[in-house]
């Protein structure tokens, strides 16, 4: 699952959670596929973001690697309060949600195409006067 701002929704994505108003009224049920109409309706309703299926990882290995890293960071954050059962309970709540796609920071984006760098010409060469060739 991934949370996506409504303006960035792509057609074909599937809602993974109900879209509900603050007072609990469901505007659109999960399982609906995003179409141009659905998107414009959500925009008109001033919904900011929705949760859709799919994590868009390049591969399962990549997903596992990212999860492992997130989990390691989570355990480090709680490393000084391990004797507190309430906080250990909280850590477990966060750990479970990590596996459900609730990440505190965005997944790594594929690196942008590197811009072709101008070839390095070396430091400017200063010729001694006598070496200069007259054109």
């Amino acid at each position, binding site marked *: 699952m991934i949370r996506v701002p409504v303006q960035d929704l792509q057609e074909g994505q599937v809602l993974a959670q109900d879209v509900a108003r*603050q*007072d609990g009224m469901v505007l659109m049920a999960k399982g609906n596929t995003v179409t141009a109409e659905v998107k414009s309706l959500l925009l008109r309703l*001033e919904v900011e973001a929705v949760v859709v299926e799919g994590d868009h990882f390049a591969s399962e290995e990549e997903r596992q690697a990212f999860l492992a890293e997130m989990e390691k960071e989570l355990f480090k*954050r709680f490393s*000084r309060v391990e004797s507190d059962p309430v*906080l250990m309970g909280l850590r477990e709540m966060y750990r479970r949600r990590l596996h459900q796609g609730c990440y*505190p920071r965005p997944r790594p984006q594929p690196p942008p195409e590197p811009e072709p760098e101008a070839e390095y010409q070396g430091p400017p060469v200063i010729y001694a006067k006598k070496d200069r060739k007259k054109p």
Partner: protein
Amino acid sequence: MSDQRAEARKKIQLLKNLPTLPGMIEQISRAVDSKRFTVADIGNLISRDQVLSAKVLKLANSAFFGFSRKVGSLTQALMLLGFDVVKGLILTSSVFDMMKDRDQGLWEHSMGVATASSLLAQQVDLPDAEEASLGGLLHDLGKVVLRAQMTEDMQSIVELVEVEGMSIRQAEQEVLGFDHSHIGMWLAESWKLPEELMDPIRWHHQPEGARKAPLLTAVVHLADIMVRGYGHGDGGDPWVPELDRGALKLLNLTPQKLERVVDGICEKLVNTGGDLAQG
């Protein structure tokens, strides 16, 4: 140590000279106190500063207040949020202007704690969720000042955190003899923030000290812990601080309620951090 305190107080006095802050706030405060002005008048007064009013509206519309409809005008914001909260939003936007590009992480942390405070307030039946948001937003006011006005001290503090592995608060105490919660309180006093808001600023690490607003302080105390635990933003060091037992008892949370807050955090703090800081 008293010399150091005096010095820090002096530095905070400097803050009074910051642009946009005192003039606008005092004008509005006077208008409110005089009781001769309507909400619309005060809305108009703020609207005169367009940059400021845009920022206030952006904050009023952000996730942690959770209004289902957009807050479109300052008058509406004043009616929905009340004067004290709007005043707090003006302060917040001014404070964070001081550090705009300097510390995105702290801004995200503050926004996160505002969100978590509001979620917690709903679970513990704290009547004023808006005030809880504001308390969360402003709780680390002292850290903003440290970063903006006391850069040399801040360097030593960061070094202690990174090299010695001290918590940020320990390191502040080591270098200054006091910590960001004291600085925040002095500033809140000099800005005449409502007393209810001073408690979470001063006591969010030692909630037992709160007198005026103990429940609000307990909410911000736990919200801070939850946001650090989740890993949103940057509070100055990577560790979850200790949870105060008195605060926990006061909050009287069931595991189910805590789960609900965690769900809310997941829902509201994904990839949204910090976008308001650019406003």
